[in-house]
């Protein structure tokens, strides 16, 4: 092990023994990503703040039972996902309907006008944000959180095949949105 980057697992072992400095180090390493993950799941930074805090308190409590079957980052994302869903259920907020969310956000502009106003990178970012939640989540987990197909399945508690299906449709929708905006990338 490179001591300069004491592994997350080693830190969790220390947390399990009651080491508060270790949990603070894990917080420093992972909080921003957990916060962003929840903010994009719930659409609320206030909820993200509460839930991200709870995730690390949960880490403090559950560290002794962490078996190391998955990466610590995957484990934390799974806890965050569970807590976000629970909080959303409590608030009786429905998930965004796929068909509605697949559309480009409300705009009086035609696709051509929108295209004139922004470059492709900005358009792409807007289209990623506008993806249905279940599709945007796999995009976020793969591209931003660096998760593998299997790890995404663990975080979302879905089969590997479903992860791939969601990724396929997510990328397909991005391609279609780009094409509608005048950026034909040749697929789908």
């Amino acid at each position, binding site marked *: *092990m*490179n*001591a*300069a*980057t*004491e592994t997350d697992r080693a830190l969790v072992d*220390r947390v399990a*023994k*009651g*080491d*508060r*400095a270790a*949990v*603070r*180090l894990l*917080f*420093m390493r992972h*909080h*921003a*990503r957990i*916060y*962003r993950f929840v*903010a*994009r799941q719930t659409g609320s*930074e206030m909820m*993200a*703040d509460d839930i*991200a*805090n709870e995730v*690390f*308190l949960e880490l*403090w409590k559950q560290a002794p039972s962490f078996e190391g079957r998955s990466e610590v980052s995957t484990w934390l994302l799974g806890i965050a996902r569970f807590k976000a869903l629970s909080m959303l259920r409590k608030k009786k907020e429905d998930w965004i309907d796929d068909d509605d969310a697949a559309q480009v956000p409300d705009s009086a502009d035609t696709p051509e006008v929108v295209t004139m106003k922004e470059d*492709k*990178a900005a358009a*792409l*970012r807007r*289209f*990623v*944000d506008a993806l249905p939640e279940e599709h945007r989540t796999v*995009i*976020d987990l*793969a*591209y*931003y959180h*660096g*998760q*593998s*197909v299997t*790890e995404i399945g663990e975080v979302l508690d879905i089969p590997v095949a479903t992860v*791939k299906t969601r*990724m*396929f449709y997510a*990328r397909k929708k*991005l*391609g279609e949105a780009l094409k509608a905006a005048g950026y034909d*990338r*040749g*697929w*789908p």
Partner: protein
Amino acid sequence: MSAAEKMSRRDEMETLLPFYLNGSLEGAELEAVEEWLATDPAALAALGEAEAEFSGTAAANEAIRPPADALSRFARALDAQAGPARAPTGQSWLASLFGRVTAMPAGVAWAAAAALLALVLVQSFERPSGKGNDFEVAGAQDDLAKLPFALVKFKQDARMADIAAFLGQNGLKIAGGPTADGVFHLTIPAETSADYDRIVGLIAAQPFADAVIQGRKPVDGG
């Protein structure tokens, strides 16, 4: 291969590209993507599109800024849940000494910093576990004790996201801390003393850095 089969293969490859880019693909799927990239003229363009998605997704996520006081609020919540911290021993004394050193005129501070560094090393020698203290000393692991490091205090209004981004960009690692007074122990990825001085200078120049004390420097030619 029929057109339908070819399309199906492309769909599969397009699905795997994000995982190829994030480095998590392995085995037969990795080989399949690499073979596709090497043989299909459309594949490199597809890779470029996936890279653009990668950048767009990163930008969309990083536009979300966590609150600057998240760590301090979490520390309070943790203390509330876990009970009062163990009675401070050398930690508070070390942290307060750090505070006094940083308040000194520069010339005096260098001498004091050397003394402080020696005390840190003594602590690490005497308490090799490094556990149970708020301040994580260099000797918590044998290898860590040999690495160049600096002691850094960040400003109270510093944004954690800014600090994390800076650390990541410069290969800096937090090896310990924060103390109750906010002192962190950073390992410095320097192989020469000139590298070390440059990196420490860079840290000190950041708007979020409150104070920096040099710790162990690499020995040139050693």
